[in-house]
């Protein structure tokens, strides 16, 4: 018979993942001329910030931090971003597609795909070009979505930030080919091998500050197609007969408030949240409205330059 099972502590898994992430942070900081840390304010970004602090301590984070602001983020997110930037002394850059805003692009008028392309993908591309960043660190994880399973840790982008499947480099050992030809840039994903649960466990272990929207609180919401949408400001057009109601809800992923679905929950602190997470086994992106347009939508968004 098999030998008795040898138990592994959750902390040990996090230690291993943390070491790998720090290695990737350092490699990106040292191998590229002008790297940037992309910061979306969400839980994954909060983990990235903590990892960046630990990777370079006692020196400060040696790269600027950029937020792609669609102007439709939750108010609380923006307040949180500015507070954290101040506390950590971050060199914060904000990229927004002002042309699209002037053209009247909103999540309600242009469809989620076109809205995402203009306000996130185009804004990101323009932000990277504006500052001449040659490498951008992001918080994508391989467990997020099926097509992410084959994403590289160092993901190459062709001129124009195009993702070309054929040009992706095979990754051996800890050695990365970080060389760029004219016009190429790199995206680096230090928490590729983390699961959503790892992120939460790490937030608890490291006592990481996250936006309060992740915890369940009474919030004004409306129900649309079975999804709770928060009425964060008066820009959300209410449909006929729709009346915001107070519900105890939390968000599993955060983005633009009209596109982020909340779940009803009693999890008002990290421990309850993790317990609740352990019981629900629905993929994370199921609550994100932008991915719902066909199986390969992530693939096509990536080809356009999305993260």
């Amino acid at each position, binding site marked *: *018979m*098999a*030998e008795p*099972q*040898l*138990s*592994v*502590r*959750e*902390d*040990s*898994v996090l*230690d*291993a*993942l*943390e*070491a790998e992430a*720090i*290695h990737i942070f*350092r*490699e990106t900081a*040292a191998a590229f001329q002008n790297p940037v840390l992309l910061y979306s304010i969400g839980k994954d970004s909060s983990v990235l910030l903590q990892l960046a602090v*630990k*990777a*370079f*301590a*006692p*020196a400060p984070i040696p790269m600027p931090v950029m937020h792609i602001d669609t102007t439709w983020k939750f108010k609380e997110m923006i307040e949180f971003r500015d507070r954290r930037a101040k506390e950590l002394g971050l060199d914060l850059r904000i990229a927004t597609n002002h042309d699209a805003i002037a053209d009247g692009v909103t999540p309600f008028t242009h469809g989620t795909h076109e809205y995402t392309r203009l306000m996130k993908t185009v804004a990101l591309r323009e932000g990277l070009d504006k500052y001449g960043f040659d490498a951008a660190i992001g918080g994508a994880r*391989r*467990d997020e979505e*099926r*097509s992410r*399973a*084959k994403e590289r840790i160092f993901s190459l982008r062709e001129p124009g930030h195009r993702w070309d*499947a*054929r*040009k*992706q*480099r*095979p*990754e*051996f*050992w*800890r*050695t*990365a*080919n970080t*060389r*760029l*030809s004219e016009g190429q840039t790199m995206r680096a994903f230090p928490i*590729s*091998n983390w*699961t959503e649960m790892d992120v939460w466990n790490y937030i608890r272990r490291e006592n990481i500050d996250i936006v309060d929207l992740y915890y369940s609180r009474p919030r004004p919401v409306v129900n649309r197609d079975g999804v709770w949408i928060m009425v964060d400001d008066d820009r959300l057009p209410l449909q006929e007969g729709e009346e915001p109601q107070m519900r105890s809800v939390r968000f599993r992923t955060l983005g633009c408030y009209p596109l982020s679905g909340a779940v009803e929950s009693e999890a008002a602190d990290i421990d309850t949240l993790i317990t609740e997470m352990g019981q629900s*086994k*629905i*993929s*994370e992106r*199921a609550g994100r409205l932008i991915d719902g347009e066909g199986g*390969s939508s992530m*693939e096509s968004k990536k080809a356009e330059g999305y993260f």
Partner: protein
Amino acid sequence: MTAVAEELQVLERASDARAAVLRMVACGSVDDGKSTLIGRMLAETDSVPIDQLEYARQTRRGGSTIPVGEVDYSLLTDGLEAEREQGITIDVAYRHMDLPSGRRVIIADAPGHEQYTRNMAVAASTADVAVLLVDAHRGLRPQTYRHLTVCALMGVTSIVVAVNKMDLIGYEQATFEELAGGVRAAAARLGIEEVQAIPVSAMSGANVIGGSEVMPWYDGGSVLDALVNWQPTEATGDGPFRLPVQMISRSSGNFRGYSGTVVSGSVRVGDPVVVADSGVKAKVDRIVTPDGDRPAATSGQAITLLLDREVDVTRGDLLCLDDSDQAQPADRFSADLVWIGEEPLAHGRSYLLYVGPRVVPATITAVRHRLDVVSGRHDAARVLEMNDIGRVELATDSPIPLDEYEVCRDTGGFLLVDRVTSDTVAAGLSQHAMRRAFNVTPHDYAVDRDSRIRLKGHRPKVVWLTGLSGAGKSTVADATVAMLHSQGVHTYVLDGDNVRTGLNRDLGFTPEDRAENVRRVAEVAKLMADAGLVVIVALVSPYRSDRRAARSIFEEGEFMEVFVDTPLAVAQERDPKGLYKKAAAGNLPNMTGVGQDYEPPERADVYLDGTAEVAESAGKLSQAVIEE
């Protein structure tokens, strides 16, 4: 806590982290039931979200006989197969699985038939364990050997053989034992020691997660048990200390540290370390980990090392313990390459060699052979093409402390990158350094070349006889040495055939091997000349460039090129070793004068007519030696 106790605690925690994550490569094709096996393991360990599980209940594709409502496990990992149908690149996919013990398994799934070697090599490069599927119904197939060969090459030493589809052969023990034995024998030949064979039915679940009632004759544990019971090999924790420096960390208060990941071994505060590149030594002053200062660090940890004095260290340098296991810089290496570039390997082109954070220009100087991944045979080859694996020699522009791959994957494995496209064209596994560049400073001895000349009463010389096989080189050499010997000249003959039975028995007859053959013989002749001898070399040495290279290592006037000129027809007629006959039968493709060209000397120091009397030639040659 005492210092010793704290040190132990730190090392234990790091060793727990090494054991916490297991990297596994899954080898096999959809036909072997690989998707079903992985899918079932993911599902039964609760590693799949329920919406994806629901998808696998409701969707049916391509002749599946599983009723709707039951889970078709193969669909849980089929993302890539669908992409293949759409013409999207086939690639390695990574999936996560949590074992009941709390261990995380990262599964590298390398699908596809084309580009298989490349994908397998990528997936195996970081793997601790390979799960290799064998179809019990179809038996061992060429790809089984391909998987084993690539695993062995990439350093995967622990293999779980899942003999799948036992249901199709009636759960028969004898067939299982036969297949398991076949794999064990093949693995043993490749140097893989740890092989566990498990009879499995991925479809019914037998021996995948739990045991099986249908195979009472087997009690060795399931595939999942094997992953739970795996323990990291000692080599990853107790190996020689290696810290490739990623970056220099500077902060206030004169803080200057060297940041990187310990890829092998352990280090303690106070240990003497050496910068392998320069040989500069220092002691470890502080070890800064993500959780603050610690008394020790070990393999797998990302740390910052502070030394007790200012030393010159830059990104890419390698820090080792100052002991006998430290890495030695060299600039010529023998290595296995997995060629992944679309363009084939180019001799003499300068590539960029990446090993960890280090980058150095490197040139491939010779291709030794290509490995047939199915038979394990070494085939003669001049180039390597995409998905080929082969042994090469390469030279770096400056000396680097490259470990043997067996010692450490991260400091012995490297990438070759094309300077123009920036594409990775090969993954390399260093076998051994061919020339130590550093720590080898020629020593000047009191008894030198001149004192030996005075004692012997004649000058040393290298007489290099070149010509076709059967031209009469050995015969002339023999007669010449006899004459010189009788006149009190100290001589020695280096005969091509004799040298190939020992020193050069690893070399073949490709142009690259011939170049190395000439180089080694020239170096040996140089040593002998330095010892004061007159050395007669009898070697076909068909290429001018090789002979020119040989001459270049000698002093002016010390090297004498002798052309033994015999027409090919005469040599073929003589055929003392029967080689021309074999060549005519097509058995010797590299025979000089037949399959390969002979480039006669443009201006030999001595010209000998190979059809003349031997005594006449020997007289002429010994005269030339003595006169000079």
